[in-house]
């Protein structure tokens, strides 16, 4: 089950994502929560203390590397398995959820 949650800021997207991740984790014996939004709110919504939520490790960009896929196209692919990434850069949250925060996106136009 791979769910993406979207919606305008302030609609309750993050509260719902955090609650849903914990409820699904209780049922499945673990779940991965991914913070693809560039703010630390998912951590709080999952139940991590605010202080901790403000200083979360993020998944560094160098876990991606350029490789050629089967079709000979150059693609960015993971240099580690998702399990390794979750182990190294994830944070434990209540109900067996592992939280991964994708790197904060810098200023627009820096790329």
């Amino acid at each position: 089950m791979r769910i993406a949650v979207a919606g305008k800021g302030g609609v309750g997207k993050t509260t719902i994502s955090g609650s849903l991740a914990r409820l699904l984790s209780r049922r499945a014996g673990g779940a991965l929560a991914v913070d693809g939004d560039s703010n630390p709110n998912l951590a709080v919504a999952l139940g991590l203390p605010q202080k901790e939520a403000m200083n979360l490790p993020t998944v560094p960009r160098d876990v991606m590397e350029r490789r050629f896929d089967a079709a000979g196209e150059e693609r960015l692919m993971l240099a580690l398995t998702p399990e390794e990434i979750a182990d190294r850069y994830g944070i434990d949250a209540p109900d067996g959820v592992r939280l991964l925060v994708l790197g904060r996106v810098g200023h627009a136009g820096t790329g």
Partner: protein
Amino acid sequence: MCRNHATVRSLLAELVGTSRGPIVADMEAGLENFSRGTPRHVDTLLVVMEPYFRSLETAGRAFELGRELGIPKIAAVANKVRNDEDAQAIRDFCGARAIPISGWIPYDEGVLAAERAGRALLDQPGPSGAAVAAISKLADSLGAA
């Protein structure tokens, strides 16, 4: 295209594609960090909406993008629904676009109280709120899918 965004998109697509177990990804509002590769791996897109114009407008764009990307299951989650008028506004909006509605979450003071306290909704003390019950129901329906 911003390289940072490209990396986040690729990372998300790869992570979601190869992990086991349930994954819940909290996306940026405009789905900026979806790549074309993501929907090969995301099976469900939930679009959270409130019954007012700007929220519905953003939701409408998320649906269109989700459909363009080919995500198999796209559904609405109505949030902060206070009354029949709210529910009807959501029904009208989704009905006109043939969007299924997977969850109805009522307006619940407990959500605000949890936010004020900087606490998870599930850890909010006191009687279990209507919002928690509704999200739990949503989790059950997703599990059955």
